[in-house]
Structures are given as C-alpha cells and as structure tokens.
C-alpha cells in the first residue's frame, strides 16, 4: 500500500519532469529563434570582413537555418534525445562538457552559500523568535528586511569594495590566481577565491529563511502544545529542543530546498561580478555572445536543477513528516 504510494508519486513526478522539460525546450527554442541574435553572425564574429555574403549563405544553408522552424526544432530535439546538445561556439567544445565543467565550480560555490545561508538564517530566525521584542530581535529583523530588499549584485559590489579595495584580504575576482599554471593552483587558492562570492550569495539568501523561521517559531511558541509544555514545567532550551525545533525544522528544510531557483539566479549575478568561472557566468556569456547551443543547454540544465530542488523538498517532507508518512497507512 505504502510502496505503491511512493512509486506512484515518483512516476507522477517523472511525468511532470518530462512535460516541464519538453515545454522549456519549446519555449526556449521559440524565444531564441525570435531573438535578434543571428547565428551566422555570432559564429563568424570578428572575421566579419573576411567572410563574404556567399559564404554566409553557405553556412546558413549548411546549418539548415533556411529550413522551416518546425523542422529545425525536430532536428535539434532529435539530437537532444540522443544526448547530443551540440557544440558550444565560444568554447569550441561539446555543450555537455562545458556545462559539466562549469557546473562543478558553481556547485562548490552554491553548496557553500546554501549551507551557510541555511544554518545562519535558521539560527538568526530562532534567536529572534526566542528573544522576541528584544533589541536582538529588532536588529535581526532590520538586517533581514534590509538584505531582502538589497539586490545581490549591489551587495556583491559592496563586499568587493570593502574586502578587496579597502581591506585587501581577498582577491578581486576569478576562480584561481591570475598568471599561475593550472597545475600549480592549490585548493587554498580556490577557497580564497570562493569566499567572497559565497558570502555574497549567503548573506542575501539568509534573510528569507531567517524571517520565515522567526514567524514559524513565534506561531509555535503561541500554540496550545507549547502552553501545555510550560504548564508541565518545561522552559528555555529544553522546551525549544522538544517542541520548537522539530516543528520548525521541517518547514525550514523544505524552504531551503525549494530555494534552488533563487540560488541559481543569484549565482548568475554573483559570478558575473566576481568573474567567477561558473555556470552562471557561462549563461551570461552564452546569451551576450550568441552561443545558442550552450544557452539552450544551460536552460535545460537549470530547469532540471531547480526541479531537483523542489522534488527533494517534497521527498523530505514525505520522509520526515509523520502526518504525511503515516497518514496514508491509517
């Protein structure tokens, strides 16, 4: 009974994912084919003067750019289904390789920011709610409201000014030191380059989780079961651990998993500011320089990424919350 419930859930999610990916394929294809980017132009780039009109026509013909849109779509979609994402024009490498390479360096950045914002945000929210009305609570709220109305790129610029210009502690940008051979780069160098971007992502990301946790804990503290717990002589940390923590941890975790889209969106901006060689920066390059295959590949990949986050948050709810886990079996 319970097993079929889970497998039916997974089957339905797989169906959703297939629909979602198909829809984003169609929409991005339409958007890109109507965009002002001329693929031939983008391909030729600086060699513009040396390539004649006939040659351009030949390239367009070779690529099938003169075919009807539907035919082009099915050609692209067909190769996609065979795992062929095409070749990135900027990087002159298969799109899947570029994405895998860039995603790895983004992943470290995003995971660090995600964990930091989760832990710091949760702690700040709990502190504010437990000390509700105190100066500490007001300070945390002030910080959160300020940060949630701060654009990520602006926060990044501020950190750059403070920590690289005024106090030159961290490098200004890039993922590794400039002028050093790839095999000479130590992991410490990588960490040093990652700290500022990760910090930017997490200080803006934590406001959301902190405010949410604070509101949720205040609800819990006003509940009948906390009143009863106090009547049973529980107070302070024991009361929080027994009744507060377990009732706010679950919404906080799911919120954090559901925030993958903001994380990715934030990474795009932050990597741009810090010239950090991750997937976010690859996105911006692909779109400004007309690398259509790479752009389409990244769109599909990020769809998958955000979907995974949402799926994980739903799965965690099902695993942890007894009201859903055991609700079906009774």
């Amino acid at each position: 009974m319970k097993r079929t419930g889970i497998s039916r859930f997974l089957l339905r999610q797989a169906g959703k994912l297939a629909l979602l990916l198909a829809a984003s394929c169609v929409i991005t294809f339409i958007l890109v084919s109507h965009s002002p980017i001329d693929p031939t132009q983008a391909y030729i780039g600086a060699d513009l003067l040396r390539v004649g009109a006939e040659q351009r026509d030949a390239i367009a013909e070779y690529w099938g750019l003169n075919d009807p849109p539907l035919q082009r779509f099915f050609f692209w979609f067909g190769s996609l289904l065979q795992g062929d994402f095409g070749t990135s024009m900027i990087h002159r490498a298969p799109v899947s390789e570029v994405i895998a390479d860039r995603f790895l360096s983004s992943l470290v950045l995003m995971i660090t920011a995600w964990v930091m914002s989760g832990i710091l945000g949760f702690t700040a929210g709990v502190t504010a709610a437990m000390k509700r009305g105190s100066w500490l609570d007001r300070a945390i709220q002030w910080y959160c409201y300020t940060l949630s109305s701060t654009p990520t790129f602006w926060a990044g610029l501020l950190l750059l000014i403070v920590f690289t210009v005024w106090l030159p502690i961290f490098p200004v940008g890039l993922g590794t030191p400039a002028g050093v051979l790839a095999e000479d780069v130590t992991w410490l160098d990588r960490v040093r380059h990652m700290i500022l971007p990760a910090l930017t992502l997490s200080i803006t990301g934590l406001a959301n989780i902190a405010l949410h946790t604070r509101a949720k804990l205040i609800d819990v503290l006003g509940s009948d079961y906390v009143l009863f717990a106090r009547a049973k002589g529980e107070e302070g940390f024991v009361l929080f651990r027994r009744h507060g923590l377990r009732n706010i941890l679950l919404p906080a975790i799911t919120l954090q998993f559901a925030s993958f889209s903001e994380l990715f969106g934030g990474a795009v901006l932050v990597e741009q500011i810090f010239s950090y060689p991750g997937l976010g920066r690859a996105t911006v390059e692909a779109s400004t320089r007309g690398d259509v295959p790479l752009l389409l590949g990244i769109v599909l990949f990020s769809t998958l990424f955000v979907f995974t986050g949402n799926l994980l948050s739903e799965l965690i709810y099902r695993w942890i919350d007894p009201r859903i886990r055991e609700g079906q079996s009774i």
Partner: protein
Amino acid sequence: MPLLEVNQLSITFTQYDRGLRQKKVPVIQNLSLAVERGEIVAVVGASGSGKSLLAHAILGILPHNAAVSGRMAFDGQPLTPTVIRKLRGKRIAFVPQSVQSLDPLMRVGDQVRQAVRTGDPAAEQQRAFAQYGLAPQVARRYPFQLSGGMARRVLVSIATVSGAELLIADEPTPGMDPAVVQETLRAFKAFADKGTAIVFITHDLEAALTIADKVAVFHAGATLEVTQAADFEGKGERLRHPYTRALWLALPQNGFAIPDEEAGETQICSLKHEA
C-alpha cells in the same frame, strides 16, 4: 491548612480598544477557593465564565497582557512566578482543555514519558495507558492518528504519571465515551483517596457530583458559592444561591425544571442573556 488556597483572585486583561487607547477587561473578580489534600473540588460554570483562566493563573501561564491580583498559596507558600515555575510539572500537574495541547510531531508515548518525574518512564506510561483503556501500540502513534477521546486520555495520562500532589483538570472528559468518562472519574477519585488534591473544572455538574467533595459554582468570573457536594439533593433546599439551585434543578433527572421564584428568574435571565 489547605494545599491550595486562592484568595480574592482577580484577573484583568489589557486590550487595545480603538487605535492606541487601552481598555482593561476584568475577567475574574475576587475569586476564593481552597482545596485540601485528598479533596476534589469541582469548579462548575458555563462556558466563558473564566474557569480555564483560573487554571492558567494557578499555573502561571496567563498571557502577558493579563494582570493578576490577590493571593495564591500552595502548601502554605505564596505562589509567586518563581515558585510556580518550580512547582509545575512536579508538584502541580495540569490536564488542559484543548486536544491541540499534544505536540503534533511527537509520538504520544514519548510525550507521556517526558512527564514522568520518578520511576521508570516507559513502565509508568504503559501503566497509565492500560488504566485509561489505551492499547499499548497507541504509544507509537502521533496525535493526528488519535480520536478526540483518545487524545484526552493521553492528556490525563500525562498529568497523572507526574505524581503531582495537586491536579488541575480543565474539562478533561468531553469526547470520551461514557465508560471512559467513568473510568477517568474513578481514577481521579483513586488519586484523591491517595492524598492528591484535585481541582476539577467542568461545565458538567452531574459528572462533577459523582466524585467531588465540594462544588464551587462559578458565574461571570466570580464564585457564587462553594458548597458541599452532598447539598445537591432533593429540590436543592440547602443550596444558598439561586443560580446554583437553578443549575441543579435544570439537570435531566430533576426534570429540566426552570425555577419560577423571583430570585431564580433573574439569574436564569442573565444566564440566557450571556448564552
């Protein structure tokens, strides 16, 4: 000396009226009550008469906007906030009115075990469950998997496993089936016989009379009368207050009688008015 003594207790809530103007709303006025060891005092009154607030005041869990005046003493010791915090859950136990008082994400067996102060928690919990007719596997369930009556029995278990000397039960029986109500009342009686003092807050006069030694009749935030349970008999000639008499005569076995004496009439009218 009574174990619990409440003297001239008044509770006032401060509320915001319109805009920033504050308003003081008195909810309990000059309430006095005394409970001896081994005694069951039923506090009977209509819903909204402030019965639960009396319990919350004794336990020190009133909301912040409540102001309390008067004297309360436990075992001769004045009940200040510090003293209450040390006593509750140890020497004073509480059965809350709301079934939402169980933590929704904790197995009910664990919630009972956490309340045990002396002895083996698991054994105490199993004993209490057996006594109130809860199957052993109920301990593994979460509150959402219990019926209202089962949840109340869990709440009663929590209060009774603590081994407290004073038990304050706020409407512990609604939603239970009659047999379980009888079992719960018998359990209260057994606790009282072993020396526990019990404040039994209820709107069910009939249930209260089956176990109570004294009955405090409560109306609109004040005790009208504290009387011996034995006085509730016949036509209520020994009951002093017309409201008490009206309450007694309105019971089914007394023929749902509505008293027609002039004093009773005014009380009934005011009662109807509030309902």
